């Protein structure tokens, strides 16, 4: 019907191809076309951060990108964090510090935090708070999240 094109991306190390109208948001491409529903959608205008994924190594809002723009890109989503059955260290720390309740913000939190810590490994707690303000959490009140990210950044054991 409309002008769709084929989009090929590498997601969590795997080459995936899907059809996309130019207007298809990357968030919907990941969720609906590729079935990767770990990436959540909370606002579709860049505010909440639930849809954050990594594109070519950097965290971005997948609701503010079109799938066609990601042609050829390397994408990382929450589904790719664990190593087999073993949770990623940040995932373990989120559990340890009670950094999630309903879990809706969690994928965005994890993807944002990983990029943030890589971007600025030596953050103070205030900087972590400021950086993690990129993602909205309605449940936890952020304390657990800040503690988990701080411990992750400091290299502590989960």
């Amino acid at each position: 019907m409309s002008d769709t094109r084929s989009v090929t991306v590498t997601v969590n190390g795997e080459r995936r191809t899907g059809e996309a109208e130019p207007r298809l948001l990357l968030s919907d491409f990941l969720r609906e076309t590729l079935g990767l529903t770990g990436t959540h959608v909370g606002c579709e205008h860049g505010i909440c951060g639930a849809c954050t994924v990594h594109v070519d190594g950097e965290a971005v809002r997948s609701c503010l990108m079109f799938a066609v723009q990601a042609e050829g890109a390397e994408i990382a989503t929450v589904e790719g964090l664990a190593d087999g059955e073993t949770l990623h260290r940040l995932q373990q720390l989120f559990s340890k510090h009670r950094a999630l309740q309903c879990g809706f913000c969690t994928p965005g939190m994890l993807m944002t935090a990983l990029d943030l810590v890589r971007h600025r490994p030596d953050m103070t707690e205030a900087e972590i708070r400021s950086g993690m303000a990129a993602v909205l959490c309605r449940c936890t009140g952020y304390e657990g999240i800040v503690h988990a990210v701080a411990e992750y950044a400091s290299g502590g054991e989960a």
Partner: protein
Amino acid sequence: MKPPRFDYHAPESLEEALDLLADSGPDARILAGGQSLVPVLNFRLARPGVLIDINRVTGIAGIGDAGDRLTIGAMTRQREIEVSETVARAAPLLHEATGHVAHLPIRSRGTIGGSMANADPAAEDPAVAAALEATMVCRSRRGERRIAAAGFFVDVLTTALEPDEMLVAVEIPKIPAGAGAAFAEISRRDGDFALAGVAAQIALANGRVSDARISACGLGPAPVRFREAEEILLDGACEPAAIAAAAASVAAACDPHGDVHASAAYRRQLAEAMTRRALASARERAGGSA
């Protein structure tokens, strides 16, 4: 909240992009970082028939040193500007201001050109451009046009760009020796658009202010330099009394609006406080003692 249909083009050369822009007429929109455009598409508040995605256009991104100024390609991501040592050294005002733009994942995509072209009254980049008298390098099939910041920002979300013109680079004069710059801002939460932000750059010669630049975001329809406040500082020592007088002058001269986030009166109060903070830091960074 799904965008309406549009024709999509992703040219790889500037010429191709400018041709598309010229041929598509006013129904076309340039897609840069998409951090302002895609939200309004998702809300269906904008419905351009044609999107010209310039993310794959070569030669319009990157930070270049051009002697007394930096030439920053329009498609340079705000994240790249934030981490650039060149920018931190030669344009510390832009560097500090960029840290206030949204959040890291948004700066990963957002571009300096997009921010200038978008001309949001609360955006930091236009305020910096106004303060530093940046030059906007614009191109169309008709040729190049260089527009001074003062003439570029016309009104709320309105610039001097013609429909067939693209901003290709922003030239930012380097900070002179002996000068200090600071950007002070208040927002509801870190990363939100500013309720009020003030950009200041002060040059000192023999302890006297030889050049002063003050502009603001969130305090009027388009960024302007606050000449009267700058005059107050010139030739003085930028001492607390002068800073207070300059801050009062900015508060009186600015033209804030009230909305759900803050009343105009509150913004005016912030204008004064932010000016004081920005000037005090700029002066300190210029080497003057507090």
